[in-house]
């Protein structure tokens, strides 16, 4: 693409920009109609993909449930499943609240960007509360249960690798999401500053 600067006005960034080589565009109305339908189907699939934590929580809770008759443990497992299912509905509500592309022209770039950041920050918060929360409860309960069982057979260290791995994973996810939230907050502050100068 560097050959593009061989045209007239080769040193003017505006001319360079406008004279850049074109690609063959093969978009026709028929293709657009078809792709619009496919896009809607893909969005539905993505949303379904996001509920992967539900079978994970159910599987862990079911496994734990079978290992104990203790009412407290069983309650904790059931609670984690209920929390996961309820949480997904909240998380999904946040995802659906995104401005659909056909309405995005009604918003200026500034408003759209700010809403998008606020929505993502909100989603991250919801993720920590409604997705990570039940997973911590579920896996944590399982770890406590397995540790108790390991102690009773005289092998308290047997659960240590699983516990360490679980804790490391949770800390990494938490730190990563927290960093994302912090950055989004900074960006919102920057936009607010820009708005006050508008």
């Amino acid at each position: 693409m560097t050959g593009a600067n061989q045209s007239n006005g080769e040193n003017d960034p505006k001319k360079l920009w406008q004279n850049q080589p074109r690609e063959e565009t093969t978009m026709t109305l028929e293709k657009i109609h078809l792709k619009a339908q496919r896009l809607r189907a893909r969005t539905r699939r993505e949303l379904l993909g996001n509920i992967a934590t539900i079978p994970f929580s159910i599987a862990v809770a079911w496994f734990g449930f079978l290992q104990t008759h203790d009412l407290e443990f069983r309650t904790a497992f059931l609670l984690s499943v209920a929390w996961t299912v309820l949480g997904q509905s909240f998380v999904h509500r946040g995802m659906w609240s995104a401005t659909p592309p056909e309405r995005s022209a009604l918003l200026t770039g500034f408003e759209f960007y700010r809403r998008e950041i606020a929505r993502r920050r909100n989603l991250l918060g919801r993720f920590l509360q409604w997705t990570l929360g039940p997973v911590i409860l579920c896996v944590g309960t399982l770890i406590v249960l397995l540790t108790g069982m390991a102690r009773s057979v005289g092998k308290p260290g047997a659960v240590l690798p699983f516990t360490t791995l679980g804790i490391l994973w949770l800390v990494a996810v938490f730190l990563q999401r927290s960093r994302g939230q912090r950055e989004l907050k900074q960006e919102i502050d920057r936009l607010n500053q820009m708005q006050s100068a508008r």
Partner: protein
Amino acid sequence: MSAQDDLYNEAINEYGPSLERLARAYEAENEDRRDLLQEIHIAIWRSFELYNARCSVRTWIFRVAHNVAVSRVMRKRRFLSDLASLEDLETLPDPAAEHSADQKPTLDQVWELIQQLKPLDRQVIVSYLEEMDAASIGDVTGLSPQNVATRIHRIKNLLARRYQKGVSDDRRQPKQR
């Protein structure tokens, strides 16, 4: 054909090349760029169902296109900190200092500069490169004319600082072609 289809066809006939360039400002890779351009086309076609003529077709489609692209950038990027604002770039060391004397600005360098920027600044610089005036850029971005003017001033400084060296050297030396 419906009115929506007619509007879409007219808009694409007139602004199709601008939309291609806009897609390049957001996606460097060919495949990703084609995907983005398709998303933009679909969104523009869908948006014309709601077109109310309160703003020009150009403002309308540029808003849709930028907003679709911003949404995609944010979906793909886990963190925003790897993007810079115009203010950030002004304080960074001048990469032009590393260029050789006969270096001219290239399209790759302009793309590289644009793709470092945060979404809102990217909208301003793309609109500026598309020869839009401050008022039109304000209509698309929602920034005040003063804010747009300040940003354009920064963009001009940045472009001049990065590429003027090559330009001035080029003016002193006769072209060897």
